[in-house]
């Protein structure tokens, strides 16, 4: 099976990667942040040229952000998830844009909503938010109810303002 071959090759090249292959057609690899981009390049050279998405998880109690790269191949049901952890206080990482060109928009979204800076991405400009001057809203220490009370509910209606 394709999954078993890739698993063996990754174990040889990246010896301290933790691989979980218990589910069918799903391969989850946890790797240190210095080697993550090299693992992505290796996977692309083996034919996995489809980046499905990049997502981010805020582990606030451990003080880390976790980036998850979902990689696949067009005709193959196998999906590979590459997970790395970066520090929450100094949130910066290298961009995957030289490996997969469509990483540009996912990194733009993560930069706007979590505040992680990606070096090498030329387009880290706002995507969804207008006139935003608070902390990045998807972080777990952002209080959305308090923000709504201060910004929107303090405005009186037309009858009340007269």
């Amino acid at each position: 099976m394709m999954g078993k071959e890739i698993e063996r090759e990754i174990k040889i090249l990246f010896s301290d990667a933790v691989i979980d292959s218990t589910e069918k057609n799903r391969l989850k690899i946890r790797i240190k942040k210095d080697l993550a981009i090299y693992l992505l390049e290796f996977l692309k050279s083996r034919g996995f040229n489809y980046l499905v998405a990049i997502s981010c998880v805020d582990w606030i109690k451990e003080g880390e952000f976790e980036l998850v790269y979902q990689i696949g191949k067009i005709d193959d049901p196998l999906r590979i998830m590459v997970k790395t952890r970066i520090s929450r206080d100094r949130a910066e990482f290298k961009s995957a844009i030289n490996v997969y060109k469509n990483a540009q928009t996912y990194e733009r979204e993560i930069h706007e909503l979590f505040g992680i800076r990606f070096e090498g991405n030329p387009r880290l400009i706002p995507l969804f938010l207008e006139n935003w001057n608070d902390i990045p809203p998807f972080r777990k220490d952002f209080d959305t109810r308090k923000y709504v009370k201060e910004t929107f509910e303090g405005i009186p209606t037309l009858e009340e303002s007269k």
Partner: protein
Amino acid sequence: MDRNQLSKWIKQPGKMGHKYSLWAVYFCTGCGIIEVPPVITSRWDAERFGVMAAPSPRHANLFMITGYVSLKTLKAIIRTYELMPEPKYTVAFGSCPINGGMYWDSYNTIKHLDKYIPIDGWIAGCMPRPEAIFIGVTKLWMMIEKGAATGYVRYRENYEYYRKNQEKVLGKLEWPPLYPLGEKG
């Protein structure tokens, strides 16, 4: 044309012609736009009621705001509303423009649309069905008949209030004020 309406047609032909041919701006605002193609195509034909999709906001007099309004959309809605010539009417669909609806605690949507542009009628639902949209249109006719659909007059007279609220959530606006500010009193 009914015979009992003949006197109205003779006395106020402008208002009657205005009522029975509302041209709607085809601005696909939020999630409620999924209900508008069935309404304006042949199954639940809106042209029986005189409502047609206008090619440009400069030709339109009805603005249907279907669904939630995020801050990015609010900028476009204000510009489109200010492009329409008077008299103009706005109808808000769904529960999100009324009090925030499903997105009541979201950081990126506004909670009550009447604070930013004037609304004449609200239609409840999530999204309202085409039959509810037609009932809304007939109620708008009754309001125009009585002279109660005066959202645009309210906008002109209280422009300072609306502009202040718009600038509070959107920051400094790039376009100049539509009516001169600070002239009253």
